[in-house]
């Protein structure tokens, strides 16, 4: 395309060799086109790194398995999390059941919360669901972050770095599980707050606080691939107790935190309308069109410009004065 534009420019200059103004006109024309193309090359640089391959994920990444059929809603995990992360004391104590009156979500002062749901099978026995960051295999929050403040560690935790964050909160828009919370109260150091899967403890060989504190062994910590096997075994051993589904095995590309339960996950406020592919796949097509537009547009528009201009010159041949007049106005 660019070549064609160039050719058109050269041709006109040759045609108008006798006419000094004509040569000048087309040369400048050509320079303008070149400048535009140069500008586009400059702009194209930041989008270079969008190429992306299918990720298998870190092979030995760790994860958690929550067995909702096992959970009794004692909120020991909430208390342990609060202590392990030195979070502010809650307004309602950790042994109070009154918090179950409404559905809560993780906030700037609580990485995890437990909610109560009516059991569709058995009205007397409620189901409890622990909510926190799911540490996705390919986290939408991380792909959404324009300053790369998130990273998926080889250990499996998805970590956030407040030193880079400028507070756009697109990660919160992107997260399908409503996990990240924001510290709206702070004027000068607001940050995203979310579960870290007790990264520091884990790297020192420890176990996340919530898993350690659970008296019912409803939370299991281990390698994700082992947890999938464990979940399958549990379901196979007690098919009446569990639905034959592991939530998080494939959802949105798979999550680090897995769940098994005795009731349909949709009834427990788990999002069931998500694709199995990582959410970043949804924007991949758009992002790969970016370099195309950057390269093609200047050439196409340059061609349009040169075509329009040529038309003007062709008319000028019939009516020689028009063009000269235009030139004088311009100067």
């Amino acid at each position, binding site marked *: 395309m660019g070549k064609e534009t160039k050719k058109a420019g050269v041709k006109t200059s040759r045609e108008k060799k006798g006419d000094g103004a004509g040569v000048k006109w087309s040369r400048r024309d050509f320079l303008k086109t070149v400048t535009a193309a140069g500008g586009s090359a400059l*702009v194209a640089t930041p989008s270079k790194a969008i190429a*992306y391959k299918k990720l298998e994920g870190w092979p030995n990444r760790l994860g958690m398995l929550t067995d909702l059929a096992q959970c009794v809603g004692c909120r020991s995990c909430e208390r342990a999390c609060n202590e392990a992360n030195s979070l502010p004391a809650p307004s309602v104590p950790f042994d109070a059941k009154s918090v179950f009156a409404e559905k809560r979500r993780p906030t700037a002062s609580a990485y995890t919360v437990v909610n109560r749901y009516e059991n569709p099978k058995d009205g007397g026995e409620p189901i409890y669901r622990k909510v926190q960051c799911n540490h996705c295999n390919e986290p939408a929050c991380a792909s*959404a972050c324009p300053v*790369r403040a998130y990273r998926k560690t080889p250990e499996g935790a998805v970590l956030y770095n407040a030193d880079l964050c400028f507070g756009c909160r697109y990660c919160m828009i992107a997260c399908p599980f409503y996990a990240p919370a924001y510290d709206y*109260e702070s004027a000068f150091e607001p940050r995203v707050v979310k579960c870290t899967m007790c990264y520091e403890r884990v790297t020192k060989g420890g176990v996340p606080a919530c898993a350690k504190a659970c008296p019912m062994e409803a939370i299991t910590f281990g390698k994700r691939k082992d947890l999938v096997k464990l979940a399958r075994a549990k379901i196979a051993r007690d098919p009446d107790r569990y639905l034959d589904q592991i939530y998080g095995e494939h959802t949105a590309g798979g999550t680090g935190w897995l769940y098994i339960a005795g009731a349909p996950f949709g009834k427990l406020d788990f999002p069931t309308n998500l694709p199995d592919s990582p959410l970043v796949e949804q*924007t991949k097509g758009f992002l790969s069109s970016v370099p195309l*537009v950057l390269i093609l547009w200047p050439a196409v*528009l340059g061609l349009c410009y040169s075509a329009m201009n040529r038309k003007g010159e062709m008319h000028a041949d019939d009516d020689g004065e028009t063009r000269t007049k235009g030139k004088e106005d311009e100067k």
Partner: protein
Amino acid sequence: MKEDSVVKTETFPARFMDKLFMGMPLTDYMRNLMTPFNAFAMFVLCVGVPLLVVRFTSGLATVTHASNEYPWGILLGWGLFAGVPLSATGYVMATAVYVFGYTEYHPLVRLGVLTGFMGYLFAVIYLLTDLGRPWRIYYPMAVSYGPTSVLFLVAWHVALYLTVQLLEFSPAILEWLHSKRVRKWAIMITLAMTIAGVMLSTLHQSALGALFLLAPGKLHPLWYSSFIPVFFFISSIYAGCAMVIAVSTIGARFLRERADEQFLGSLDRLTIGLGKCACVVIFVYFTLKIIGVAHDNNWDLLGTPYGYWFLVETCIFVLIPGILYTMGVKKKSAAIVRFASFFAIAGIVLNRLNVSMIAFNWNLPGHLHSLIPPWKEGFLVLTIITFHILLFRWILNRMPVLREDPRYGLHGE
């Protein structure tokens, strides 16, 4: 040489004041400012500026109701998502005139570029108000890159396009300042800047829609479409036409003394011409929206409450302006085209608010109730709108936008 510079410094303050007060003595200028609109603006700023101060000293929670479920509120819904398509005026007009050679639209180019520049400038101001740590706004450009993010692209493109539009508008500023030589350089880059403007606009107008592709679970399926980048881009084209018509109408009404014969004389004809363009594009957009529903086979959803709302948006706020444009063009009535334009603009705002707020998180309990912003947040938006209008008027009053500076001739040539 030395004498010259001495003379210059002596007269500089005088010249500066002359520019600032539009050649009037200070007392006259002050008297001129006593208008009902200015009194209203003063009232808004008296309440709004302290609110802005509170937002920056005590945190977002004090003025907005942004929450963990609703991280983006009316500041971005209105200021960024609705503001950016309405600022497509710059690239639409510049492309028409400088690339496609519709030179008869010259009297409207500068107004288009200025509207675009101001729109982007204020979109950034809304963004700065909403960002948790606005002093880090340059981070995506200089500190840490997240190229997998659509927002990274938006950040780069808005920053670059703001610069491009400033350069595109700079001839008007330089004419106002009588800087002949620099103006000549500014004119030389017109075509390059126009093409850069189209590239950047194509990408970030569509990117604003593509931002929501990452949230398939949260945005209602009638609005969540793989075509959303195309919807956003195509609708920005007619939004640009409609905004040029609207702003020129308002300019010709309230700042008539700043406009020249060429502007006022050609306005009706050019309005109808722009209406023709808007008419074609709005029908293209309407058809694409229908194809979008067909593509995802969402026909059954049209019978739900959100479906009715979708029909309100597409039939009342897209189809009817389209029909009005057709009538206006057929009857050669600038008045109908103007009415259609205000209607179409309302439709654009509604669409962007639908995508970013009303159809977003639609499946959360009590969703619609969570949308109503507290008065402080609404007032913050009103304050920024007031600043926008005041600065816009300040520029139109001083720089050759609605008129040509006789010393320089045709705009941008």
